[in-house]
């Protein structure tokens, strides 16, 4: 079982039921569960969307789009059925927050999903977990069955005139399926290849019907927002970035773990105080602030608030909340190589710049790290990556290119240290670890 951590600076909203046996439906109800959805039924869709807009909740999957606004884009009238799709295909390296939500608080996802359905007029919700989370699907399915048994799902939920069904399933191993349009393809029983947009899912989504797609953490936040009120939730965070976020700290921190902190919390403080600093008192070399696709930050760049706008201003992205800490033993070339290996493996192959670009980057970086690098390779790596940017139908191409560009730009010296057959300057340390 993944270890739970705690720190006094945490503001537990989404994680407040973690470790409280809330997978049990009666316990969940005891802990204020299924209260928000009853209020939502009473107050109606306009009230729900107003609360969501006031909350300044922004999508926790990575893009940070305002959730209330997303919901308001769904047409009120539609000939085709509307759907809610919960994206639990958590696959961005460095990210493991939804893992804990499904493990400890599956009913919050169900409740949030019903509320989203009420807000946009959908009668069916899908909860899609990544294939590796099979044991969490078992927990989720049990929670759904319990909710049906209580009349919280099915016909006339909570004694109202509303019907709502939830279907849950897993994928079968594909990072790309975490992208919203590829996710819909996968749910329709196809290869996880993205769709061309427009039309956007809010207009033409699953089975051609208007569809709201939200990250699992976003959906799990919804009941809490209605319970405390949108404005109160917004006040926890920073400007235009409401509430809290589950930050997944990994890598060389002394106390890695998933911490729930207010949006805008200082990154330096997060690493040095919340996560206990760098393991063994070593020096910090770099931080990947929001999952593997976000450009790396130097130690001199981490005195910033962790919200979508401030991290953006610092030249990176808040992404999916995966804060990866690198100490001074890390070879950046090897780290860049491992990152690009991942994207090369996961590229669906549809768009040529992504399919070929990731492959060439992998080949070049592999040769480079093995000591076969030439001076021109350094600029070539950057040139290749820059030519992938914005030239693909989905953001996977950008996700591969952006960190690569940042590694070359910020750690050029380390690339040069590998030139002309020089062995990796960090290999010795790694051999020591191996011995």
């Amino acid at each position, binding site marked *: 079982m993944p270890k739970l951590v705690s720190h006094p600076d945490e503001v537990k909203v989404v994680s407040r039921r973690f470790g409280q046996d809330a997978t049990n439906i009666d316990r969940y109800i005891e802990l204020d569960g299924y209260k928000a959805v009853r209020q939502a039924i009473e107050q109606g869709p306009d009230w729900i969307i107003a609360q969501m807009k006031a909350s300044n909740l922004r999508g926790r999957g990575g893009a940070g789009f305002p959730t209330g606004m997303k919901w308001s884009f769904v047409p009120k009238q539609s000939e085709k059925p509307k759907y809610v799709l919960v994206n639990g295909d958590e696959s961005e390296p460095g990210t493991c927050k939804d893992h804990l939500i499904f493990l400890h608080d599956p009913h919050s996802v169900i409740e949030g999903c019903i509320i989203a359905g009420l807000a946009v007029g959908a009668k069916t919700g899908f909860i899609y977990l990544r294939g590796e989370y099979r044991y969490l699907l078992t927990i989720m399915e049990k929670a759904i069955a319990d909710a049906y048994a209580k009349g919280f799902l099915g016909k006339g939920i909570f004694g109202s005139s509303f019907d709502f069904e939830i279907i849950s399933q897993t994928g079968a191993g594909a990072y790309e399926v975490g992208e919203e349009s590829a996710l819909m393809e996968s749910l329709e029983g196809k290869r996880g290849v993205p769709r061309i947009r427009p039309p956007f899912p809010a207009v033409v989504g699953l089975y051609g019907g208007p569809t709201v797609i939200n990250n699992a953490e976003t959906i799990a936040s919804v009941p809490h927002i209605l319970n405390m009120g949108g404005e109160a939730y917004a006040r926890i965070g920073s400007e235009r970035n409401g509430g809290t976020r589950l930050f997944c700290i990994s890598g060389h921190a002394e106390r890695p773990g998933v911490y729930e902190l207010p949006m805008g919390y200082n990154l330096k403080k997060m690493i040095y105080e919340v996560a206990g600093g760098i393991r063994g008192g070593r020096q910090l070399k770099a931080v990947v602030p929001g999952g593997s696709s976000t450009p790396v930050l130097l130690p001199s760049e981490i005195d910033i608030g962790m919200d979508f706008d401030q991290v953006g201003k610092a030249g990176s992205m808040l992404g999916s909340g995966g804060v*990866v800490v690198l100490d001074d033993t890390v070879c950046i070339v090897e780290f860049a190589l491992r990152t690009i290996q991942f994207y090369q493996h996961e590229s669906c192959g549809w768009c040529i710049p992504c399919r070929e670009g990731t492959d060439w980057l992998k080949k070049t970086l592999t040769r480079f790290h093995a000591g076969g690098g030439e001076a021109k390779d350094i600029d070539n790596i950057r040139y290749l990556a820059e030519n992938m940017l914005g030239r693909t139908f989905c953001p996977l191409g950008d996700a591969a290119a952006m960190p690569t560009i940042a590694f070359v730009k910020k750690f050029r010296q380390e690339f040069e240290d590998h030139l002309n057959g020089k062995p990796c300057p960090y290999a010795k340390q790694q051999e020591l670890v191996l011995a």
Partner: protein
Amino acid sequence: MSLTTILENPKPGSTIFSPELAARFDKLVTLYPRRRSALIPMLLYAQDEIGYVSDAAIAEIAQRLELTVLDVRNVLTYYSMLRTRPIGKYNVQVCTNISCMLRGGKEILTHCKKRLGIAHKETTPDGMFSLEEVECIGACSWAPAVQVNYDFHEELTPEAMDAVLDQYRSKAGQ
């Protein structure tokens, strides 16, 4: 795969799956607005029962979903967890992606290779273990992590990894 397996259709009403799984499939295909949506779960459940997705499983799933065998294969080959060949009883999947790499994921992989005497995507001669280097499995804050079949093992060291392997070995012996 021979041409005959492509052309040969299973007899309607007959099944290669256990009665429980066949009943589960009967329900799954009615669950979604479109039958085809049940495809990925069906492939996974078939694999769980048989150990891999066999030609016969593909043919029956295609028939149940009113798809061609080619439609099914087209989807099957996209997803990294689905396989068309048998592997060991316990599939040891070692994550070496960034968060795990930083905390010794590659060393865990090397250790497993040495310990089991097999490389990536190979199986021990007794059919007990298969080994696979995998991409991020969503256990980054508890790295390095390994998944054996669907079970997670976190915060591993080479010694702890040995204990995990021993645990499965004795489980198989029971």
